[in-house]
């Protein structure tokens, strides 16, 4: 009995102590409810014949899965889905591989100064937007006077319309994406390499292991955890082909290979004002992405003991 009273007193004190914590969270909570959770509930538009003038939660007509079957009948949808998966797949694979190789090569550099300089330079593109980079590549890759095509013709080749030719558009997207991100992507691997016990290398040298064997038997195993983690987390990007990049680099000539789900939703919804069908595509994408992200976090937690909070 006595103990219970003590506990209740404690609870009251606890509540008084916790109240400011609730108050601190309140503004952020309200913003997240308005700008994240209300749009989530707005996904019901996917099941309505949506008329904008009636308002977002107005008295709209429910049409079940009609928007979905309409979208499926559009040739643009399957095309966009296929392009999204293909582009995202190559970006994920090369986006994992190249930063690892780059980190290993950088680690072999003896000169600290050169190492620092290389790092400073290769991280830079990551911080630039695809508007700026799109503008730069549009200029560089132009078939008339772009510096890349000048080089090609100078070397005796034909000039290539990288951003207007369906054979070249996807590789161009993938290469420029890697160009932007490989340096920044290497940071986590470099950090892992720094964490490897230097004594292991000394022991290996005494045993006569050359640098290749040291990399294979010490550095790579030392990076194993972070490599597994990055592989697993990249699963969440299966439907992320990179809207910012594609939007700033594509044109009608390359819709066949370059139109992705996000750009498809943009045109269907905001240009053609077909809100219902566009939301249906958006819901489809959100659901699959959520599934993959959840699975990736779960696997990361399971195999790499990764906890984000």
């Amino acid at each position: 009995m006595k103990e219970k009273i003590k506990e209740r007193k404690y609870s009251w004190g606890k509540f008084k102590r916790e109240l400011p914590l609730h108050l601190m969270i309140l503004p952020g909570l309200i913003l997240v409810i308005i700008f994240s959770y209300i749009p989530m509930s707005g996904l019901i538009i996917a099941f309505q014949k949506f008329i904008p003038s009636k308002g977002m939660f107005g008295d709209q007509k429910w049409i079940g899965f009609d928007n979905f079957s309409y979208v499926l009948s559009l040739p643009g949808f399957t095309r966009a889905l296929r392009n999204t998966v293909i582009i995202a797949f190559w970006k994920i694979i090369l986006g994992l591989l190249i930063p690892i190789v780059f980190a290993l090569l950088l680690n072999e550099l003896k000169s600290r100064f050169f190492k620092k300089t290389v790092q400073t330079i290769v991280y830079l593109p990551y911080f630039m937007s695809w508007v700026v980079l799109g503008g730069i590549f549009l200029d560089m890759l132009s078939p008339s006077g772009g510096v890349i095509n000048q080089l090609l013709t100078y070397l005796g080749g034909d000039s290539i319309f990288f951003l207007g030719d369906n054979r070249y558009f996807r590789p161009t997207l993938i290469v420029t994406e890697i160009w932007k991100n490989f340096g920044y992507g290497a940071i986590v691997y470099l950090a892992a390499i720094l964490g490897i016990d230097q004594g292991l290398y000394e022991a290996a040298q005494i045993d006569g292991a050359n640098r290749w064997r040291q990399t294979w038997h010490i550095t790579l195993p030392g990076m194993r955890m972070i490599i597994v983690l990055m592989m697993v987390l990249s699963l969440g990007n299966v439907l992320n082909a990179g809207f910012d990049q594609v939007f700033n680099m594509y044109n009608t000539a390359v819709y066949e290979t370059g139109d992705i789900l996000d750009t498809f939703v943009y045109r269907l919804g905001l240009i053609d004002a077909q809100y219902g069908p566009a939301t249906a595509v958006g819901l489809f994408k959100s659901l699959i992405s959520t599934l993959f992200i959840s699975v990736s976090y779960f696997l990361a937690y399971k195999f790499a003991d990764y906890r984000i909070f």
Partner: protein
Amino acid sequence: MRKKSKGKLAFDVINFSILFLLSFLCLFPLLNILAMSFSDSTSVAAGKVLLFPVGFNTYAYQYVLAKSAFWLSLLRSFERLAIGVPLNMILTIMLAYPLSKEAAAFRMRTVYVWIFFFTMLFSGGLIPGYLLIQNLNMMDTIWALVLPIAVPVYNVILMLNFFRGIPHELEEAALIDGANQWKTCFKIYVPCAKPSIATLTLFSLIAHWNSWFDGLIFSNFPDSYPLASYLQTVVVRRDMSLLSLDDWKTMAMVSDRTVRCAQIFIGIIPIIIIYPFVQKYFVKGMTLGSVKG
């Protein structure tokens, strides 16, 4: 040390060359644009400009700076930074502090964390987000650009993990001294977390500066574009209004191409200015949340 073997030496040379080439490839596009923006239009058209300006002049910049649309959008961007970045930071701190508490000290903590974390997993996507801004009558206002991204959940998680690393004794000592939660947060935790706060501020600054799509879709009138959206229309979409012939172009002092190069370069100046500060911190900031091991 033994003398280097031939194989080792060859590897060092090749490795050095590869990394040198990679660095060059990362820098070349930027230098090329910079050089063209300061060159005369005929040399640019003739493809003579690579790394250094040919026929140095600043006409392209004068041309860009003479446009009122440019200044309007720049002003808009500054307005966005002035409101958006402090808002991001204050919310990040105010959320990270309570959420960094153990569930024993703050019972609702886990519920709140999941409410915020869930927004990283699932989202309403483009159309509902657009319709919301329209229904809230926020089109063409600065609020459409700052409020939807006011809570940077990923930054909150980074900050939260940093706060957790601060020794408990500090908080207990503050409590005994009679400090309340607000004081403990802002007088003890925030000063301890200065490097993290600096990193996240720079990241928020870059995100707001670079953000272009929201400005594009949440504006009915080009007058309310921030600079990034303005650049999208003139550099990428190449609006016809810019291609009009005027005195500058008829006299061949500038061409569309040199003007675009100047606009691109102006767009990255702020990034280049704050980049050295970012670099000082970001390795720490990146590894902070992701590899706690």
